[in-house]
């Protein structure tokens, strides 16, 4: 199990005093100290890890967030920001000596600005809530993580959330225009607005995906897009993962960027079909869902092109949706894949690496060997278009040692992703889950430069410590320059 930073005994001893001080900033009912009420916040989507927060604070204005942070900064109290708590990597895992700062009360859609094609929302608005606020105008918000009913925009910014459509439409970072954010010392900053591109350093670019380590987001301006006129999908079965992989490569090679392109392996297909009866073929090794969206003339043309590519790659079954109901049915099994796997195993552990797509068969073959080695089954769903792999490791937490085995298996899979030229996480974030694997992908100098960015925002490292980085370095120590006088590599350098 992962270790979290040692709790600060001085802070723990002052718990009651800190709670009383918070009650001077917030209404008393917004400061949660009772154990049974704090229990609600002890975990996020990474349920294997639990920790009761010291106190939970639920502000509802930017000014309150600012005052809470300023107070904590002055009193060396740690903060863990939290949206809906759907993180799959433990990004919102509480700290024993920290305040969990819930942004759930920030749930207003502040403005819909159609002429500028954007909406201004508070961070506690759900991802789907943004789309629901603009869909009567024929618009939508593009990133669509599968937790979109529950997850919030603030959390999406923190995690740079994606979804099944992000190869074509981008992730959160490509779809936001402006932010209001509170720094750890209480300073409120505004970045961007309704215009494009940063004025100078692209702070929004680094805040997006920073996993709650740089600041607390209190307002987001998102871009909204006109809904595509049509969407149709193909459901294509293949006799091997290789032929499915070839089909994906050939679709991209033909210049086609589908709105969504998902792959499932045999165990995932069977679990999904048993659960939702979507009519998936059961005699195939791999199944592809390819969705084309856009103008009708384009979609009809590309459906035909993809059909030809699929057949040439050796498909053994191929269906094309002819109605919205049929298209949604193709997706039903894929969208239910996680709960479907949950039905065939007491527990499952969802991984999230990205690989170059060409390495897919190599990775799946090696994963089968690892599955045998660990004695744990694995089912795979794959955002095939962008190489983002979600292996689901099946285990039983009630069997002693099996969770640890599942974690070791998962770590081996992620190392394998890095080894073939990929990365540790495509969309779920590092959090606590992959924190200790960071040195497998990054050198000490790589990580130090990331932490230096952190130091510019939060020099006391009070915001969400223990996440993302395996080692806490003191900012003062990282700031020092190492003088190498006397061993100059270019002593006689000419000047101009």
């Amino acid at each position: 199990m992962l270790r979290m930073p040692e709790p600060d005994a001085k802070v723990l001893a002052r718990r009651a005093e800190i709670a009383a001080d918070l009650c001077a900033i917030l209404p008393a009912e917004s400061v949660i100290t009772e154990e049974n009420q704090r229990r609600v916040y002890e975990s996020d989507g990474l349920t294997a890890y639990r920790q009761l927060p010291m106190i939970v604070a639920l502000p509802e204005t930017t000014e309150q967030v600012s005052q809470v942070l300023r107070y904590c900064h002055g009193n060396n109290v740690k903060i863990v920001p939290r949206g809906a708590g759907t993180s799959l990597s433990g990004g919102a895992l509480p700290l024993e000596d920290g305040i969990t700062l819930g942004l759930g009360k920030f749930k207003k859609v502040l403005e819909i600005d159609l002429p500028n094609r954007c909406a201004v929302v508070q961070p506690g608005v759900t991802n789907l809530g943004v789309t629901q606020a603009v869909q009567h105008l024929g618009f939508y918000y593009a990133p669509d993580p599968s937790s979109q009913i529950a997850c919030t925009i603030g959390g999406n910014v923190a995690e740079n959330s994606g979804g099944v459509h992000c190869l074509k439409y981008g992730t959160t970072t490509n779809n936001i225009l402006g932010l209001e954010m509170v720094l750890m010392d209480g300073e409120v900053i505004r970045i961007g607005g309704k215009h494009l591109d940063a004025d100078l350093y692209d702070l929004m670019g680094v805040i997006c995906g920073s996993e709650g380590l740089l600041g607390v987001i209190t307002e987001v301006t998102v871009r909204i897009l006109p809904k595509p006129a049509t969407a149709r999908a193909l459901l294509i079965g293949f006799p091997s993962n290789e032929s499915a992989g070839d089909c994906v490569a050939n679709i991209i090679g033909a210049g086609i960027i589908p709105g969504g392109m998902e792959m499932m392996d045999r165990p995932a297909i069977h679990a999904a079909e048993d659960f939702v009866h979507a009519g998936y073929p059961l005699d195939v090794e791999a199944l592809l869902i390819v969705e084309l969206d856009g103008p009708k003339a384009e979609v009809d043309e590309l459906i035909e092109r993809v059909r030809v590519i699929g057949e040439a790659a050796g498909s053994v079954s191929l269906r094309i949706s002819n109605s919205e109901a049929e298209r949604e049915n193709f997706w039903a099994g894929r969208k239910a894949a996680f709960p479907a796997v949950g039905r065939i195993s007491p527990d499952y552990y969802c991984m999230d690496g990205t690989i170059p797509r060409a390495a897919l068969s190599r990775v799946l073959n090696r994963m089968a060997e690892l599955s045998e080695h660990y004695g744990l089954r694995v089912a795979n769903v794959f955002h095939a278009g962008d190489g983002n792999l979600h292996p689901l490791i099946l285990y039983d937490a009630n069997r002693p040692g099996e969770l640890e085995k599942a974690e070791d298996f998962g770590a081996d899979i992620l190392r394998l992703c890095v080894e073939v030229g990929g990365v540790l996480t495509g969309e779920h974030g590092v959090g606590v889950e992959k924190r200790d694997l960071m040195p497998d992908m990054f050198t000490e100098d790589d990580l130090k430069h990331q932490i230096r960015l952190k130091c510019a925002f939060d020099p006391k490292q009070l915001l969400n410590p223990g996440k993302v980085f395996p080692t806490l370095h003191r900012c003062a120590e990282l700031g020092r320059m190492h003088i190498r006088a006397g061993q100059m590599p270019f002593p006689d350098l000419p000047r101009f």
Partner: protein
Amino acid sequence: MTTDLRPADSQTLRDMVAMLADRKAATEIIGAGTKRAVGRPTNAEYLLDLSKLAGIREYEPNELVMTVGAATPLWTIESALESQSQMLAFEPVDYGPLLGGPAARGTIGGVLAANLSGPRRFKAGAARDHFLGVEAVSGRGEIFKAGGKVVKNVTGYDMCKLIAGSWGTLSLMSTVTVKVLPAPEDTRTLVLHGQGVDDAVAAMALALQSPHEISGAAWLPASGETLLRIEGFPESVKARLGATQALLAGQGREQFVLDAGESRARWQAIRDVAPLRAPPDRPVWRLSLPPASAPAVWRALVGPVGDSGYLDWAGGLLWLAAEPTLADGGAEAIRSTLAAHGGGHATLIRGSVGLRSGVAVFPPLAPGLEALQQRIKANFDPNNVLNRGRLGTSA
């Protein structure tokens, strides 16, 4: 002019930067040098020329990624992409001729460092959105890498975004990985002739609110034209062009359609600010603003500040050539007008040495943001070696 430091690999670059940091030596950084005339003039002691860090390292068309030396010329990259019917979707701009130099000399590192994107920006994203991975040397003289060679990645902070648009003041890129995309098979441009600024911005907004996937929207008042670009598969282009014509029926005095060749030429000219190249003594401003504010901003500035300019990004980008007689090049009028109309920012892309020495070339920041930016600079380049003074702040 002599070119002194010209590293051929990242280890040498690291050693050179470490030495410069030791000497606390103000250093100007160049790739091909096409944008040297942008920014506050500096009195650099050294010139660090990265042009040898060039060449395509990996190109996997089916993975939609390319890894190159940071100083690889854009034309090298674009011709490799063209052979596979792919492109850099953000349409890298070429300010060479605008700034009095030759065309087609820029590098990928330069266009990323300045985060400069062409007319497709509002649909396809900016340069920074296609910047996936980097190996760089910070002002501390240390090599670090960030990002990756895959299109979807959230491992660690997105440091590529920090480097994009930092104008070489934080880190020097040695190798970069960029996302590439299929090039459109066909392109057409619908031209509405004879519109004023209000009608043009309204027509562009209507087109962009439709599902017809417009990939360029510009208004050129000198020729009285509103241009709407439609790209993609031929069948799709035909259908969307028809639908856009129906949507905008009756707008403008007349309408006509440009074919693929004419379209490409027109959009390249818009991208590279060709309409404002002459006369060369005019300061040229680049304003990013909320698109719906464009008519009001246009009316407030055209006349008092300058009389030539045009709109791109459906009004979200306003190019303005200022009168050469204005003491501040129009800076104060431009920035206060933006502030009064929904915000945005203005950068002086072309200006005389005298003008650039006196006005804020880059957008002035609110005090809190300015301080944060200074702290970032101090963490990455503590001795303030890289492009010292270029941003006009103490950074």
